[in-house]
């Protein structure tokens, strides 16, 4: 069943188009940076961007930081919102369920497929970012036979070995993937509520926009720690020396709670629902 869902998703032109669009912005930013040589000063603009001119191997992280606030969540919301609602709209849901695919099994398969999309999307952005970063900027190769070991500099000013950068980059990528899982859980839940994939996607975006907006509002500070987008950018903390785990662990546990609650709700709703599409 999971394999069936993966085949469906990755054989779909739209899946790849979404991933391609996702990579367009970081590439554009890289081209502009190279042409103008005008990097934002440290502390301004998307994280890591100021550093990439001196070390292109940081560009995967800069690329993730560029797509994280908007494009990556939209992409995940589109795919996750489509998961059940898309089948309902196409009418294929009734044939899957009378096959019978089993409602819980179908939901799990959809969840795994969406999760894999998140991982693939994040990895593709990171890999494309790495290729772009190392070809267009001054690169200090990571890993392998590096002499000297002055890979890069952390935000705290100390230097990191290339090995360290690789590890921290991988952890950062993992963290972003977990944050996107929260988005996927919202998408899957909304997708069981409606027969319109667009409606489900818009629902997710409404939640994320509200969350980002409330985050900037002082009056909302009591609920700020519970906003789904609160700790998204905490992956930056992997590049402090030593790593600041506080926000990272909070972000991970917050996403875990959201994912748990939303998936339970999605399951409860989907397994007791009248399928009339």
């Amino acid at each position, binding site marked *: 069943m999971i394999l069936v869902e993966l085949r469906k998703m990755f054989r779909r032109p739209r899946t790849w188009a979404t991933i391609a669009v996702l990579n367009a912005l970081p590439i554009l930013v890289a081209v502009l940076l190279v042409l103008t040589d005008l990097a934002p000063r440290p502390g301004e603009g998307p994280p890591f961007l100021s550093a990439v001119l001196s070390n292109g191997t940081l560009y995967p992280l800069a690329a993730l930081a560029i797509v994280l606030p908007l494009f990556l969540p939209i992409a995940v919301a589109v795919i996750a919102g489509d998961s059940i609602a898309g089948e309902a709209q*196409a009418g294929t849901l009734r044939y899957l369920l*009378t*096959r019978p*695919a*089993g409602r819980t099994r179908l939901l799990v398969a959809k969840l795994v497929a969406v999760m894999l999309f998140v991982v693939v999307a994040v990895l593709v952005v990171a890999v494309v970012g790495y290729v772009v970063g190392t070809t267009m900027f001054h690169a200090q190769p990571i890993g392998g036979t590096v002499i000297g070991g002055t890979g890069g500099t952390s935000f705290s000013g100390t230097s990191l070995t290339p090995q360290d950068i690789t590890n921290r980059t991988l952890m950062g990528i993992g963290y972003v993937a977990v944050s996107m899982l929260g988005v996927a859980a919202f998408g899957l839940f909304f997708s069981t509520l409606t027969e319109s994939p667009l409606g489900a996607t818009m629902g997710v975006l409404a939640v994320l926009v509200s969350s980002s907006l409330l985050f900037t509002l002082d009056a909302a500070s009591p609920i700020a720690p519970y906003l789904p987008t609160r700790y998204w950018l905490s992956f930056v903390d992997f590049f402090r020396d030593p790593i600041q785990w506080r926000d990272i662990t909070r972000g991970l546990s917050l996403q875990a709670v959201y994912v748990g609650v939303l998936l339970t709700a999605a399951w409860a709703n989907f397994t007791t629902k*009248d399928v009339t599409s």
Partner: protein
Amino acid sequence: MSGVIVTRGLVKRFGRLRAVDGIDLDVRAGDIYGFLGANGSGKTTTVRMLLGLVLPTSGEIELLGGRMPRAGRRVLPRVGSLIEGPAAYGHLSGRENLALLDASGPGGSWRTRRQRIAEVLDQVGLAGVGRRPVKAYSLGMRQRLGLAAALLRRPELLVLDEPTNGLDPQGIAEVRELLLDLHRGGTTVFLSSHLLAEVEQLCSRVGVLDRGRLVLQDQMATLTAPTGATVVHTPTPDRVRATLDGRVTAIDGERVIVRGDDPAEVNALLVGAGVPVTGLALQRPTLEQVVLTATGASSDRVEADR
């Protein structure tokens, strides 16, 4: 084995509307069961409940001996269905659609999958369709693909909702032949339709749904049994009345209804009296008349799509 589909007091309420209001279906092995009803009479809701898509408010459903929806995983692989028109993934070919659907549930071995797909595509007349994506299919081709999906696992029971929708007259005749052929092979067919003619030609047993209630359920042969009168066609109806005085119950143009269930006897009397007779038959009610009588007020809606 009998009792392929049995429901007892099946009710589905949507808010305050009782879409299905206590129906007791009884479909037996070997039937071609015609499930008739106007649009909005609750046919589709009933079909969806039988297949576990819609959960009943109250009542019981037994499908191939298993209680639905709980037994779905066990009995549904033995059921083929076409519900409210076909559906498929437009960017994939028909063959791939069938393969994906077959892989999505139990009871369809991948070893035999290619073989089975080739066979059903041939059965529904899509053998030469190749790798074309479904979005390039015509309505009739999609309908055929939907039928192919229903037949993929050689089901014991076919539940078909409007299977000839979108087909041209040749296509309709082909599907009818296919269904009769499957039926001869032992498949029970549950055919939900509002097309009286289709049901009259195919079905051995009929259930009529009217505003959520099953108002009629019987063998086709019983419903359309002779009424005990003979229909005489003649250019001179007045002379028939004169000859068979007292036995003529109605005259409608050149059609004369005569009491008596032996056309040969009526014919002998008329010919003996020199009355020209152009046609002679036992009077049988048409399915349409039966349904109209049973459904009453909303009956015009039954006929609307004829």
